């Protein structure tokens, strides 16, 4: 979005600090260095304090051994500092009286004898997991770890094996700090060393390494640059490739030796023994290298996002209310939408198709709004209503129907990849998930304004409500976030970062038409989204408590949200606990009596004990005495997170404040805010200055009415997506949408009452030739019934549809759950309710929905595919369900009409929404006679001939293209 520059700077400045351009970053300032167990020293030109310094304390034991040779070797002061350390399995190093602000912390560690493993945290945030200290003499400067200080303390803790902590180095500010003193490397190479480099090393690196490890690389391998000294000093995703003087400890040497299973370079060839020896020699001579140009900085500068240019893109430009274009044929348009469409058609010299006939239009709009066909009565009424408002009346009737929400709610459930199971390896059921599904259906039916619809799904728990019921509904709405996918089977190392990725991925696509998750590991390759943007959102969900659905190694649900007030929930839980205690007490008492008793009375007591035990067990297995929602809550810790380098949670990078996408203004959570930030996120999304929210939703609504969006990539409004065919029309719809108070039903009315919507689907040859894809909408795009509409219609025609709203699914009781990846939860529950109420598993396709292009339950489905496969034909030929519905329809035809011609007419009205024409009726009758004769000769009893032959006609009609396609 292009904002005024002042505004951009004002809002976005905290974010820009971490934007890759680094434009606003101030160079960090050396704050303190402390030799944890020794005298003051000078390291890399900075004065370090000794262990007697003020505002420093450390609980580790003192240790010093200056005789261990260090690997790599280093300068005298640093070696002195390193070899005098504090050790222990639980060390805390505290710096006190630290002014509030951003800092970066480095820690020197070393090993004096046997390798050990420990983990490190800074202010309780783990920064290194299971660091292995290496062999005797190995030392390392770990960090820098960005740290925000608010409580005047920096605490570095080591836990695990006996760690040796040597020195603490702290910088203030968040820019890049100088790399570790390059003292190990040759500073001023001799002429001889330079000659060696130029003749043996540079050509070798250029031939074998530069393709992937230089500024010129098409794709930089492992973020490692070998084309400059700064690149080598910094290293890539792994630690620096060279330990000066120590070939065996250098990753570069390890890689080219090709002995290590994990690390082998170059990937496609092997260096000769001489080349390997040259590299070893070079490392041994401490890597003399004249290439001092900073190629890292050069690459950074090249890849920096130009924010002004970035926001000058069709989907990111501010919403405009475009002027209505003039048209030649002023009598054709019914409303402004038509003027946008007709202007384009006229410019292309294409004539719009004729209007659809009344039966076709009624069939179209009825399927469109409620996903079911019109009844013969509705067809007759519409045919008979000659007033100009006839169609408006139909639209209003359908919008008021409760089945509207079932149809349009399903569209939304597609986009948010709704499922009734969690998606972990055992695919645990979520018995409470249906509440969110029903909330979505109800929200569409009551035309909940879209901005509020978004707010409630992201932060309904933070909105409260005018009534307790309203507050509960809003809690349920956050099931949107809770429904994010779960992964794996484990508990302690549960990959929450993947669940959060699934959340952000869906949120980006659903509300913003943006593939934010591409920025999890690296800046987005095509769109102006940085890794910092990704982790700016990540912090919000990191600060959110997700419900636990159960997983193989912890089967019980937890952290759901009670749908009763907290104190009421507490009271009920205590009540239940008391009852449980009573029952267990009774068991103990009876057991005591039994143990003392003999003979008959013992026998009777045995039985009493058994009964009491059973009663106690029954209570224990009962579900909680109040209803719960599978919804989110504020997390225990609400805080910013660090970038995870390459998407790896074990590789923390700089801290990122919680904020919105930079290109959309980058609004940040105020520092004083104590919440997760979900409510702010919702308001950033639906802020009228964000052009994406309205554009994306208006495009979706258009898509569902026409079968194709104005932009045909409804989940991707970025550079990889397709720009809209009618950009002004899209902006017109989006601005009208906001103006109407984000009313979805108002947008339906505008679209449905346009002339464009009412066109026939048959286009003339000129139009087809000139615009084969029908992008200009000279006719209504023909489309296939989706899986749900097909199944629901078959049920309706077969007289088996149960129109009541669905409730919970018949999952097995939670007390019996024993799901594993070996025996995952798998079920298909039959129901005659509408298909939106079918139980949907995250990782198992429903057999019917899989055949007819149902939604992907594991990822957002912005638009259904319409594949045509023999399996679909087999289904319509032979599936028991189809035959059953055909039987129902036959029965109904026979019961509701007295003559065969009347029955044929009713069949046509029910199945195709029109009366038979031409020879269709006589053909049907001829077919019935033929089938009857065939069945008679196959000795079908006469009393079944009627039913069976009509059933054959019904099956035939179910296979017609006219039945499954809507004109």
């Amino acid at each position, binding site marked *: 979005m292009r904002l005024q520059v002042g505004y951009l700077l004002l809002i976005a400045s905290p974010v820009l600090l971490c934007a890759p351009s680094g434009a606003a970053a101030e160079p960090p300032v050396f704050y303190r260095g402390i030799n944890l167990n020794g005298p003051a020293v000078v390291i890399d030109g900075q004065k370090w304090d000794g262990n007697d310094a003020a505002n420093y304390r450390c609980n580790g034991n003192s240790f010093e051994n200056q005789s261990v040779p260090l690997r790599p070797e280093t300068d005298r002061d640093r070696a002195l500092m390193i070899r005098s350390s504090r050790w222990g399995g639980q060390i805390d190093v505290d710096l006190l009286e630290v002014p509030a602000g951003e800092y970066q912390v480095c820690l020197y560690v070393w090993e004096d004898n046997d390798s050990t493993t420990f983990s490190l945290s800074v202010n309780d945030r783990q920064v290194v997991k299971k660091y292995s200290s290496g062999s005797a003499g190995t030392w390392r400067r770990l960090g820098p770890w960005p740290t925000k200080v608010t409580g005047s303390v920096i605490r570095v803790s080591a836990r695990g094996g006996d760690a040796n902590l040597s020195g603490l180095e702290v910088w203030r500010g968040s820019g890049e700090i100088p790399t570790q003193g390059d003292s190990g490397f040759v500073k001023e190479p001799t002429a001889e060393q330079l000659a060696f480099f130029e003749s043996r090393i540079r050509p070798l690196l250029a031939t074998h390494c530069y393709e992937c490890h230089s500024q010129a690389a098409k794709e930089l391998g492992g973020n490692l640059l070998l084309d400059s000294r700064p690149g080598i000093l910094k290293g890539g995703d792994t630690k620096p490739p060279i330990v000066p003087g120590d070939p065996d400890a250098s990753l570069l040497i390890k890689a080219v030796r090709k002995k290590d299973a994990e690390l082998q370079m170059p990937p*496609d060839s092997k260096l000769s023994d001489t080349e390997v020896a040259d590299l070893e020699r070079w490392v041994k001579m401490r890597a003399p290298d004249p290439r001092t140009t900073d190629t890292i900085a050069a690459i950074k500068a090249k890849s920096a996002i130009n924010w002004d240019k970035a926001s000058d893109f069709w989907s990111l430009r501010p919403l405009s209310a475009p002027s209505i274009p003039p048209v030649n044929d002023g009598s054709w348009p019914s409303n402004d939408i038509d003027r946008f469409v007709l202007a384009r058609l006229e410019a292309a010299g294409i004539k719009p198709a004729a209007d659809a006939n009344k039966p076709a239009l009624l069939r179209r709009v009825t399927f469109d709004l409620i996903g079911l066909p019109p009844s013969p009565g509705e067809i007759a009424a519409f045919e008979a209503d000659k007033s100009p408002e006839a169609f408006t009346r139909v639209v209003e009737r359908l919008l008021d129907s409760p089945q509207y929400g079932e149809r349009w709610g399903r569209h939304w459930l597609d986009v948010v990849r709704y499922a009734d199971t969690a998606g972990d390896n055992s695919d645990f059921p979520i018995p409470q998930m249906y509440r969110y599904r029903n909330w979505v259906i109800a929200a569409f039916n009551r035309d909940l304004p879209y901005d509020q619809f978004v707010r409630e799904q992201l932060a309904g728990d933070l909105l409260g409500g005018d009534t307790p019921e309203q507050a509960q509904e809003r809690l349920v709405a956050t099931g949107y976030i809770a429904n994010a996918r779960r992964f794996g089977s484990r508990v302690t190392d549960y990959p929450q970062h993947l669940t959060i990725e699934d959340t952000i991925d869906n949120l980006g696509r659903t509300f913003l038409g943006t593939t934010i998750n591409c920025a999890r590991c690296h800046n987005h390759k095509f769109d102006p989204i940085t890794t910092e943007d990704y982790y700016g959102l990540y912090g919000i969900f990191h600060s959110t408590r997700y419900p636990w659905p159960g997983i193989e190694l912890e089967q019980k649900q937890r952290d759901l949200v009670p749908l009763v007030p907290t104190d009421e929930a507490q009271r009920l839980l205590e009540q239940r606990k008391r009852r449980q205690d009573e029952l267990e007490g009774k068991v103990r008492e009876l057991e005591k009596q039994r143990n003392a008793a003999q003979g008959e009375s013992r026998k009777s007591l045995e039985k009493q004990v058994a009964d009491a035990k059973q009663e106690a067990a029954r209570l224990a297995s009962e579900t909680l005495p109040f209803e719960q929602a599978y919804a989110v809550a504020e997390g225990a810790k609400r805080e910013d997170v660090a970038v995870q380098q390459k998407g790896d949670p074990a590789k923390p990078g700089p801290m990122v404040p919680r904020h919105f996408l930079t290109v959309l203004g980058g609004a940040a959570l105020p520092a004083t805010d104590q919440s997760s930030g979900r409510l702010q996120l919702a308001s950033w999304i639906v802020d009228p200055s964000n052009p994406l929210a309205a554009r994306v939703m208006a495009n979706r609504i258009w898509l569902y009415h026409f079968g194709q969006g104005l932009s045909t990539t409804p989940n991707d409004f970025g550079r990889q997506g397709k720009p809209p065919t009618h950009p002004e029309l899209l902006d017109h719809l989006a601005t009208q949408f906001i103006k109407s108070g984000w009313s979805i039903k108002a947008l339906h009315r505008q679209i449905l009452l346009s002339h464009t919507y009412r066109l026939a689907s*048959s286009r003339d040859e000129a139009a087809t030739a000139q615009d084969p894809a029908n992008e200009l909408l000279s006719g209504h795009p023909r489309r296939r019934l989706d899986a749900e509409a097909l199944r629901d219609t078959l049920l309706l025609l077969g007289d088996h549809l149960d129109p009541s709203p669905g409730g919970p699914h018949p999952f097995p009781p939670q007390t019996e759950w024993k799901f594993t990846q*070996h025996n995952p939860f798998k079920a298909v529950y039959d129901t005659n309710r509408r298909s939106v109420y079918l139980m949907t598993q995250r990782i198992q396709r429903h057999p019917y929905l899989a055949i007819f292009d149902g939604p992907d339950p594991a990822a957002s489905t912005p638009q259904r595919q319409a594949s045509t496969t023999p399996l679909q034909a087999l289904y319509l030929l032979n599936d028991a369900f189809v035959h059953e519905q055909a039987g129902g329809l036959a029965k109904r035809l026979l019961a509701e009409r007295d003559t065969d011609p009347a029955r044929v007419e009713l069949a046509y009205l029910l199945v195709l929404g029109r009366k038979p024409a031409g*020879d269709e009726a006589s053909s049907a009758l001829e077919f019935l006679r033929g089938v009857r004769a065939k069945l008679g000769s196959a000795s079908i009893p006469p009393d079944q001939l009627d039913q069976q032959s009509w059933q054959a006609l019904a099956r035939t009609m179910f296979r017609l293209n006219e039945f499954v396609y809507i004109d």
Partner: protein
Amino acid sequence: MDSSSAFTGRRAVVQSLAAGSLLMPGLLSELLADSSASDPLSPKQPHHPAKAKRVIFIFSNGGVSHMDTFDHKPKLFAADGKVTGIGGGLSNQQRVLLRPLWEFRPGGKCGTLVSDLFPHLRERMDDVCLIKSMKSDDNEHYQATLAIHTGSFFFSRPSIGAWVSYGLGTMNGNLPSFMVLAQHLPYAGTQVFANDFLPAYHQGVRVVPGPVPIADLDRRTPQREVQEMELGLAGALNRRHLADRGNDQELAARIRTFETAFHMQTEAREAFEVGRESRPTLDLYGLKEGQADGFGWKCLVARRLAERGVRFIELIDGSSSHNWDQHGNMAEHADHAKAIDRPIAGLLQDLKQRGMLDETLVVWTTEFGRTPGVDGDKGRGHHSACFSSWLAGGGAKGGISYGSTDEIGATVAEKRVHVHDFHATILHLLGIDHTRLTYRHAGRDYRLTDVAGKVVQEILA
């Protein structure tokens, strides 16, 4: 158009509707003659000429121990009971080493060593290209099973069979291009043969040995003639509808699917009827008279499907709850090996005898190997750091072993073949460049090998 005038101005359909024939009239055939545009399953040219035209992909579920089957580790026999730091497997714990339970012997002229678990297969080693340096990235069944099928460890993605169907189409429009013979589902369930974001034509069609191998395959209308009459009337009405709508190709394609489905009722059925095979052939697969289940049946049906032009045939050995996952007692590997050894050897021999092996790539793999160290009493744990797989026919070099593990089979020692490399190589043998077989989905081009994968050149014949 007003419905009452719906019959004017269209091509005359002279035939009586009720007597409509199933045979495709000229109009429709013409329309679909150049079907590559309208039919996503029509055969497609590969990127480069290739020997393999089809794949039979055998997946042994649960994690087959490499050092007990194809990866001979003499040092491990000797090191039984010792503890080393590289027991491998889950969290890389130290484990007491466990000796393999089976002796190894050379097989074929090439002399590739195979353990006594696979005495029949051992005799076929001249046709087999063994890979001993396979590597996966996850020690969970579910993740590793998903990965060996889709290249993705966590997220649902199209299966390799769906990719091959998408890349090459099918040779027989009357059968699905990707069929999966699975009595029970493996780990990760239907995801292992899902089309995911690829069009639904490419989904694996599951075949369940037993009375109903494919859902809805059998005619439910009791009288064949009545079904034909139904299809005749529907066909005629559909063609009229089509002619009224400018011969829309989508509508035409759907008409044709009914013809295909009609033929599938008999043709696919036929493919499953192994009773037509000769006694010597049945013997090759270890099948008894009238037997219509077991792994022998699956292997024989695989050959019959291959003959009929199915592009990718997967055989699933084991299920998520009964498989090669021997944590407690390695001896149970014998039962699992016995169930598949002879059928697979028979399949290779049968394909060869019929001259089909050159064009048919047979793949055998599992999700990961097992630890050199003991798990439970006498079992082995999960081990993705290395395992064995093999290829046969279809342009793979027979009679060789590729890659190796260290002396106890804990890590890959040389020539690592990651799951992505394995996939890249299979696609290469089919004439597909794995970096060019892409599908645009959700804003980016996806491929089976993600951003990795390298063809293992040395095993190409």
